[in-house]
Each structure stands twice: as structure tokens, then as C-alpha cells.
């Protein structure tokens, strides 16, 4: 599906991705984690062509991403970012913007199919009831759901999300991620998600990559990647990992310095 091989990219000599290789399988939900400045955003921007690829290649369904036209790319790859740019636009119009990659020059009006798809995805993401409302009237979580509906309207092969939940409360975080998981399960949509919260990553991703200083430190299943040794090394911080009794996935606990000093003799793992 998405094949990143020996990718080198970056802004300056100071920071570059160092020969990153990652395969995202069709139908998978892959998560990328890592501390600030580890290269997550640089990787994201290489995928969206916002920065130049200096070496290696990215293949999307076997085709070099550099050789796709912007329209072709937008038909295969849909993107949801941290913040959704909002202004006084009705929700329905906002979602319909996802059909832009399919519009011809001088095509002023949407076709019946465009409306059908917009309605379908607004229902699927649960924002159909806000259809006529303005984007500015919705909460941050609802705006994110609308942004996902718009991305789905692009009928993409791959959905790329850049920390879509980082500004949301826990209920909306779960709402958004449950939706993404449902899209992944029910529609077979391949998802690549950059995510800060290790517990959410552990809970939702079926494959993970942990980045560190511009390269991939560890990739594999959540239980392989989210080992306390990996986390402590990459994040340079002390954590406690246990298994979530319900999902059987690793769960990470943070400890304050004060508690840590008091219990320095206690075994942590």
C-alpha cells in the first residue's frame, strides 16, 4: 500500500530524516509515535509533499508519490490535521470540498454523486445533524469529525492523520478514534496516524513505529514497541507499563519525580 524506503528529507542540515523505511499494509491501522522533534511531522510533510524528498522514495500503491499530480494524489491520499481551519461555512459545504480533486476546471456545481457521498459520510461520522450549521458553531471534536467526513469524500486509499485528537477531551478523543477504527474495520480503509498519546496508540493501532532523532527506533506490534525500556530510552523519562486488563494491550503510567524519589527502592516493572 504505502512503501517508504530509505527516505531522507528535512529542512536543513540540522534536522533530517535518516533513511526511514516503513511499510503500511493495506487495511492496517498504523501508528507513529515519538517525542517532540523526533521527525514525526517531517515524515508527515514528506508524505504530503510539503517538503522535498532528498533521498529514497515513497510508493503509494506502487507509484512514486513525486510523480503523481496534485489531483491524483488527493484522490488517493486524504489528510486530517490537528486543527481544522474553520470559518463561516456550512458543514455540508465543508464536507463537499472533499470532492474538489474530482472537479474539472470551470465545473462550478457539484454533481448528484458528490451530494450522495457527502451525505453518506456525514451520516457515517455522525455529523449529518449539523449539516446546515456553520463550522464555527461546532465544538473542536465535532469539527474534527466533519474534517474526517471531508477526507472520506476524497474516496482515498489511505487516510493520513496528524495528531487528530491532541486538542480534544477524552470523550471526543475516543469518539474520533473509535470512528477511525470503525472506518478501518468496516470499509477496509488503510490508516496511518501520527499520535502523541501512547495509551491511545497502544489501544487502537495494530502496528506501530516509534521515532527517535530522525529515524525509526522500533517498529512492530504495540506490545513490542511499547516496552518500558524503549519508552524510557526514547523519551528519556521513567514510566511504568502494565497490561490493560480488558484490551490486553500495554498501558503506560507516568510517575512524578517526588513519588519516584520516595519509591526509588521499589521495583517498577
Amino acid at each position: 500500500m504505502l512503501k517508504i524506503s530509505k527516505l531522507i528529507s528535512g529542512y536543513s542540515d540540522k534536522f533530517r530524516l535518516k533513511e526511514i523505511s516503513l511499510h503500511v499494509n493495506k487495511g492496517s491501522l498504523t501508528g507513529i509515535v515519538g517525542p517532540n522533534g523526533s521527525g514525526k511531522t517531517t515524515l508527515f510533510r514528506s508524505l504530503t509533499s510539503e517538503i522535498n524528498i532528498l533521498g529514497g522514495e515513497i510508493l503509494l500503491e506502487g507509484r512514486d508519490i513525486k510523480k503523481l499530480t496534485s489531483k491524483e494524489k488527493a484522490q488517493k491520499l486524504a489528510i486530517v490535521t490537528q486543527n481544522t481551519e474553520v470559518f463561516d461555512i456550512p458543514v455540508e459545504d465543508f464536507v463537499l470540498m472533499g470532492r474538489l480533486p474530482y472537479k474539472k476546471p470551470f465545473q462550478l456545481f457539484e454533481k448528484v454523486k458528490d451530494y450522495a457521498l457527502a451525505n453518506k459520510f456525514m451520516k457515517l461520522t455522525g455529523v449529518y445533524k449539523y449539516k446546515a450549521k456553520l463550522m464555527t458553531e461546532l465544538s473542536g471534536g465535532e469539527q474534527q469529525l466533519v474534517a474526517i467526513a471531508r477526507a472520506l469524500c476524497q474516496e482515498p486509499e489511505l487516510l493520513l492523520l496528524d495528531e487528530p485528537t491532541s486538542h480534544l477531551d477524552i470523550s471526543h478523543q475516543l469518539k474520533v478514534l473509535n470512528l477511525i477504527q470503525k472506518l478501518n474495520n468496516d470499509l477496509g480503509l488503510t490508516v496511518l496516524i501520527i499520535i502523541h498519546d501512547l495509551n491511545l496508540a497502544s489501544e487502537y493501532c495494530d502496528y506501530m513505529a516509534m521515532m527517535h532523532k530522525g529515524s525509526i527506533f522500533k517498529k512492530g506490534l504495540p506490545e513490542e514497541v511499547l516496552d518500558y525500556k524503549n519508552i524510557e530510552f526514547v523519551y528519556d523519562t521513567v514510566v511504568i507499563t502494565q497490561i490493560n486488563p480488558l484490551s490486553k494491550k500495554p498501558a503506560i503510567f507516568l510517575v512524578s519525580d517526588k513519588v519516584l524519589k520516595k519509591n526509588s527502592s521499589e521495583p517498577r516493572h
Partner: protein
Amino acid sequence: MKGRYIHWFYYILALLIVLLLSIWLSVSYGEINLSLVEIIQILKSKSGIEYTILNKIRIPRILLGFAVGGALSLSGVLLQGVYRNPLVEPYTLGISGGASLGVALAIIFGLSTGIGSVLLPISGFIGAAMTIFLVYFLSLRNNYVNISKMLLIGVMVSFIASSAVMFLMSTTTTENVHSIVFWIMGSLDTSNVLLIRIVLITSLIGLVISYLYVNPLNALRLGEAKAKHLGVNTHVTIRVLFIIASLLTGISVSVVGVIGFVGLIVPHLLRIFIGSDYRILLIASFLGGGIFIILCDLVARTLIAPNELPIGVITGIIGGVIFIIALSKSKIH
């Protein structure tokens, strides 16, 4: 949502009706007032002093006013879309400053005499074009336009040009100063049919080409990065729209002088009523700009008749007042 398209249709219909009304008013009133029946009779008879007034003065002015108003308003709305800033207008980029400088130089070097009626617009256009290229190339980096930088450079170039004009004015004769000031204040008073045709045709072509980029322009409302995510080639879009807007402004300013505020007020007012969708906003701004200038010119001609006020004064005062009233009543903050 078919209902929206019907709304759009009504907006355009309403604007067309207002346009016809303002054309009618503008043809009827002036130094001599004519009724609709009289106008039709005069146009049919094709003779007499009234026919000359209509055919040589009033109708050309209306056509020029419509074209210039449409062009300035369209270029305002395009630039606001490109810069994602509702307060940008064609003159912010220094285009009028450059044109004024060109004209001031032409007047001082005595080019305004003789076949002056064409030479002034030409020097104005050269001044505007040079400013456009200067601003554009100064804001290029690695072959990409840096939008926020471009805006600042435009404002600076504008300041430099107006200072240069003031310098020229303080060193030249009183007569030249008068000509420069009068040109800067703007007037639709030109009898050159060729110039009117050029402005009318370029503004209509500008409108058609802008529609080729209307979907990218709509996507740019999300910001450059997100428009790219939706498959928009933002570099080409921004470049083309900038060039259209600059040329439209350059041509208008060089023919009629500096008529301010149109590109700011008309799109802004229309946004309040019809929203931010550029599919309707482009055509509505074009029509609205045309109407605005035709009406302002009517006021400029009749308020202290038989003397004429500079139209730039009227657009500034009327436009500003309407704008403040509409803004304080609207829900937009």
C-alpha cells in the same frame, strides 16, 4: 443543496436589476435631465446635442465606470482570497502608487500635452507594471512566492512611491502639481473610445479567467497547506490570480486615476450578505463594483453641478460610511 443555487440566482438577478437601474439613473441625470421616453427618442433620432451628450459623454462614462468598478472589485476579491486577508485591496500592493509615480513623471516631463490623453495612461500602466514586477520578484524565494512577505513589500513600495510623488510635486510648477493631484483623485472623464474598450474587454476576460481558478480559490479558504492536500496546485493558482488582479488594477488605475476603496468595500459588503463562496462572490463583486462606481460617478457629476467632484472623494466617503454601517449591523466580527 439545490436551494443555495436558487439563492445565488436571485442574488445575481437582483444585482442585474440594480445595475440596469443605476445605468438608467446615470443616463437620465446630469447637467440636463432626461426621462426614459426622451432617452429612447434621442437614441432613435441619432442627432442633436442631446444625442451627443448621451453618446459621447454619458454612455462612455457608464461603460468605463462599469468596467473599472468591476475590475477593481474583482481584483480586490481575488487578492483577499489569495492572501486570506479580508483587508487587502488592490492598492495595498503598491500598484496605485506605482501608477501615480508614472503619471507624475509623465506630467513633469511634459508628456501630457499633445497626444497626452493616451500618453498619461500608458505611463501610468508602465509605472503600475513595474511596481507589480518589483513586488513580485522581491518576494520570490526559491521560485516560490512568499505571500506575507509580498504584502509587506507591497505596502513599503506603496509608501516609497507616494513619497516619490510628493517629492516630485514639491519640486515642480504649480500647474503640474494641479494636474498630478487631479489625476490622483480620479475621474471617469475620458473621451478615448479605445481606452474604454481596452478596460472593458480586459476586465471581462479577467472575470472569465478567474472562474477557471474558482475551485482552487475556494480551497484556499482553508489555508495553503490544506488546499494542497485537496489537490490544488497552490503555487500556480496564487501566481495566476495575483497577475490577473495586478493587471486589472494597473489598467484601471492608469485610465481613471486612483479610485480607492472599491476593491475593499464592495467584496466586503457582499460577503456579509452572500457568504464566502467564491463561485458567487466573483461575479457578484464584479457586478457590485460596476454598480458602485456608476452610482458614485453620478453623485460626483451632479452634487455640485455644473462642476464635478473627483470620484475618488465620493467612493471614499460613501463607501466608508456604508461599510461602517453594514459592519456594525452584521453578525460578522
